[in-house]
Each structure stands twice: as structure tokens, then as C-alpha cells.
């Protein structure tokens, strides 16, 4: 028995060492990523809940094992207002680096409380990786530099641990999406297709008819069956790619960005909240000097302070008018406009990913 436990222990150690070797971590890069994440939350995706405050209790149907089961109905307006304002404050603290560690944890806890109520309509969205990212990074040194009120510096092993754990969470999340598909989609029956089900049901039953969706539905059925195979391979392969090498992991992450662009364009499923999660594995350290210089300039502050005030005012307007709007530009009901924003975000993220991963890697090698 003790031999067996030793053997398992060895495998466990090898597994984590392998992953940490394949994910290089750099504190300077993490601190820049903190600013990018904060801006992403402020501008592109900030969960909001005040819109739920005036809904009848009849709609309150929390799923099993939901925190919302502790409540008898939707809480009142002041509860949701406090939640939304605190989320805004927490994302401001993450961006500016005011005790980013505690701000990240507060953001995650408040979001999960609000989301438990939001999913009480009976449908669960799958934005969990964003909160996993913030939770994991709250254990790193991402709030120690380029910060107004820096966190205490911790040993760099925590950075490595947090990112390794987050990479495994991404792998598992995609496994959870691909497992059932593998059972039902991988067969030689070219008269049935899962991709076609997503495409046609989305188009006709859920009115997802924007961007390239009209073109997508005219794909030949055989091509959609081939996409079934590709989707399953993509969703079940991240752990293998993570274990092979740093480069293979980055290739998988880049594929994930392209996968999301395709989903936005053809299926009108944007998953904008996932856009930031892949960037954590990029090396932004090449920007450190430039950003540090920029932050110290008075001119930059003259522009940044009013811009931040404007963002906060717009967010507060949405909160106090009970407008459901995860991004700063459009309310949630303007579906097409939001899809355009999502497409731009995904293209931008993909370009940043290519620049901050592969190009820098090549430059380092040639140097």
C-alpha cells in the first residue's frame, strides 16, 4: 500500500512539475496583466445585478446546490445596488492596484453571490473561468508592482502554483464540454451532426441570425459533421497540449481564441467573459518599462483620471437605471451591437496573444 501511495505521489509531483515548467511566470508580466484585466472588467465585461430587483418571486427557481436556496426570493433593490457598486469599486481597485489581492477576492465572492440569484431563472451561464482566473491570481504577486497601494510581496512559487492550477481548471472546463460530445458526436454516421444542431437550432429557435450566421447555415452537412470531430479533438486536447510543451500549450490557446471568433461569427455565441483568460499565459514584460514610464507622467494622469471618472459615471448610470449591460457601450438587449463588440474584442485578444507570445518568443530566440 505504501509503495502504491509513493508511486501515486511521484506521478502527482511529476504532473505538477511538468505543468509549471511549461508555464513560465513573470511578475512584471502579471502586474501588467492586472491592469489589462481591470480595464477589461471596467469596459468590456462587468457583471451587473440591479435589474433583478423588481422581478416577481414566481420567477425565483434556484437550481439545486445554489446559494440562492438560502433566500426566499430575489433580494431588494438596495442589496443589488450595493453588490453592483462594490463590484465597480473592486474592479477599479484591481486596475489601479489598490490592494489588488483582496479586491480580486471580493470581486469573485460578490459576483458569485449575484450570479447565484441570476441563475435562479433556471438557466446557468458558464462564465466561471473568469472568476477562477481572478481567484487564482489573488494568490500571486500581481498587485505588487505598478500599484497605488501595493500588496505584500510573496514567494514567486505562489505565482507558479496559481497559474498551474488555473491552466488545469481551463483543461477540465473544456473536458467537461467535450466529454459528452465525444460520446455522441464521434461516429461514422454522416446523417447526424451536433454542429448542425447548434447552427440550425440557434438560428431558427433562438433567432441567432446575425453576423455570418446566415452564411453558416448553408454549410454542407458533411462539413458540419467534420466540424463535430474538430470540436471534440479541440475540447479534449488541452491537458495533453499543456503537458507536451510551452509552445503546444500556446498553440492550443491561440486555437481557443480562433474557436471563439468562429462561434461569435457563425453561432452568435460570444463568450466575451472568456476573452481575458487566455492572455494570462502571455508574456507582457516587454511592456513593463514603457508602462512604468507612462504611469509616472503627469500628462498621462491628466488623461487617465477624467477617462476613469467617465467610465465610472457611465457604469453608475447603468446601475441606477437598472439597465442590464455587461459592456460599457450597449445595453444587453442590443444583441447585434454587442456581437460586433464581442467580435472586435476576440480579434484584438487574438492579435495581442500572437504578439505577446509567439513574436516575443522568436525575438528572444534570435537575441
Amino acid at each position, binding site marked *: 500500500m505504501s509503495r502504491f*501511495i509513493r508511486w*501515486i*505521489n511521484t506521478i*502527482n509531483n511529476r504532473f505538477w512539475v511538468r505543468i*509549471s515548467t511549461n508555464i513560465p511566470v513573470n511578475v512584471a508580466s502579471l502586474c501588467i496583466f492586472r491592469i489589462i484585466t481591470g480595464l477589461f472588467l471596467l469596459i468590456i465585461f462587468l457583471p451587473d445585478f440591479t*435589474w*433583478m430587483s*423588481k*422581478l*416577481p*418571486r*414566481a420567477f425565483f*427557481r*434556484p*437550481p*439545486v*446546490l*445554489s446559494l440562492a*436556496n438560502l433566500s426566499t426570493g430575489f433580494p431588494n433593490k438596495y442589496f443589488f445596488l450595493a453588490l453592483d457598486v462594490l463590484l465597480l469599486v473592486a474592479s477599479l481597485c484591481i486596475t489601479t492596484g489598490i490592494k489588488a489581492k483582496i479586491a480580486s477576492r471580493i470581486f469573485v465572492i460578490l459576483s*458569485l453571490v449575484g*450570479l*447565484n440569484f*441570476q*441563475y435562479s*431563472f*433556471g*438557466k*446557468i451561464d*458558464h462564465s*466561471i473561468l473568469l*472568476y*477562477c482566473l481572478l481567484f487564482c491570481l489573488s494568490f500571486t504577486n500581481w498587485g505588487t508592482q505598478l500599484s497605488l497601494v501595493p500588496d505584500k510581496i510573496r514567494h514567486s512559487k505562489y505565482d*507558479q*502554483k496559481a497559474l*498551474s*492550477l488555473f491552466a488545469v*481548471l481551463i483543461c*477540465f*472546463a*473544456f473536458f*467537461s*464540454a*467535450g466529454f*459528452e460530445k465525444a460520446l*455522441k*458526436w464521434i461516429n461514422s454516421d454522416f*446523417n*447526424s*451532426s*451536433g454542429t448542425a*444542431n447548434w447552427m440550425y437550432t440557434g438560428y*431558427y*429557435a433562438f433567432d441567432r441570425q446575425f453576423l455570418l450566421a446566415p452564411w453558416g*447555415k*448553408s454549410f454542407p*452537412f458533411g462539413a458540419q459533421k467534420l466540424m463535430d470531430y474538430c470540436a471534440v479533438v479541440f475540447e479534449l486536447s488541452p491537458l495533453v497540449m499543456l503537458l507536451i510543451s510551452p509552445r503546444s500549450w500556446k498553440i492550443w490557446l491561440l486555437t481557443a481564441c480562433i474557436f471563439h471568433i468562429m462561434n461569435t461569427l457563425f453561432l452568435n455565441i460570444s463568450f466575451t467573459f472568456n476573452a481575458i483568460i487566455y492572455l494570462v499565459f502571455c508574456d507582457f514584460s516587454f511592456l513593463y518599462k514603457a508602462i512604468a514610464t507612462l504611469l509616472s507622467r503627469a500628462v498621462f494622469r491628466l488623461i487617465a483620471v477624467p477617462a476613469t471618472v467617465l467610465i465610472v459615471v457611465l457604469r453608475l448610470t447603468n446601475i441606477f437605471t*437598472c439597465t*442590464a449591460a455587461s459592456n460599457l457601450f450597449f445595453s*444587453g*438587449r442590443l444583441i447585434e451591437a454587442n456581437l460586433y463588440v464581442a467580435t472586435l474584442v476576440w480579434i484584438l485578444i487574438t492579435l495581442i496573444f500572437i504578439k505577446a507570445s509567439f513574436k516575443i518568443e522568436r525575438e528572444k530566440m534570435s537575441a
Partner: protein
Amino acid sequence: MFSLRSSIILLLVLFVPFLLRLLGSEPYPAVLLPSNAETILKNNFLTIKNIRLFGIRNDRSWEEINKMVFFEPIPLEHAGIILMSHLFLNANRIPQDSKKDVLYRKLGLLRNRTLSASDIYELHTWIKSRLSANGFATAKIRIAVYRENVLIQTGAVIKKEILYEQVYTLD
């Protein structure tokens, strides 16, 4: 890095919700992404179930209500179960508890979902306010469920039948 004990706890945290979802009860929060592994057969048409709402205009004619505007501020993708339960106006249409639900309720993991008189009054008031905000009379709402066969390439409806239709009085 992570000890064996931490890894085992991590595996449990990840796999227990995953197994619960496979059994049909997705918990939240859980590290899961959407699966939806349903497939569709190669065919020229698609059969869809469409739940439509109708309100009365000033000239006493029935007119279809734009669901997205009606449910504002609830995002339409979250209004699906409300629609399927016919806005909870008909007790027979509200999904009944499964054996699993009964078990979860006994374990205290699920709340009692029966509506009290004040809940029903609050629900009617909300529906009336939404009808009024969209220019409809507030006395009645009609819910109709259609089964439609839609041509995949053109979107034309080639067959349409009413599965259910009922007018609900709100006053």
C-alpha cells in the same frame, strides 16, 4: 507544488459537479463549460416549438408581443423556463418535481416552489405593467405554443400547428 492531498481535493471539487451534471442536476458554482451534445438528423427541415405571447391592442385585436421587449430587463436567454412554464400562470404547466427534486427538498437543498396568493398577485401586477409599458391592454394575455417545420435553407415555415393555446385573465 501541490501535495497529493490537495490534488485529490481538487479532483473531487472538479468531478463531483461534473458527475452531478451528467445525472441531470448542474450545481453552481462549478468549473464546467456548456456541453449540449444533442445531434440533428440530415433533413431539409427543422421542427421547433415556438411559444408566443399575444396582447390586446386598443382596437381589441390580438397582436403578438415582442418577447425581448416584454421580458425586459430579463435577458431572453434566461426567460426560457419562464416561457416554458407559461409565465407561471397555469399551475398545470409549471414543471412538476421529479423524484430527484423531492429528495433534494428533503435534504434541504431545494426550496419549496409553490406560489402563495401574494406571489400570484405580484406576478399578475408585473405582467400587467409589462403589457402596459408595451401599449397593450392589461386585462388579458394569450399564450400559444406552435410546432413549426422550418425549411433549413430558406427559413420558410412549411407546416405549423397549434399545440396549446390559452387566454389568461389578469384582473
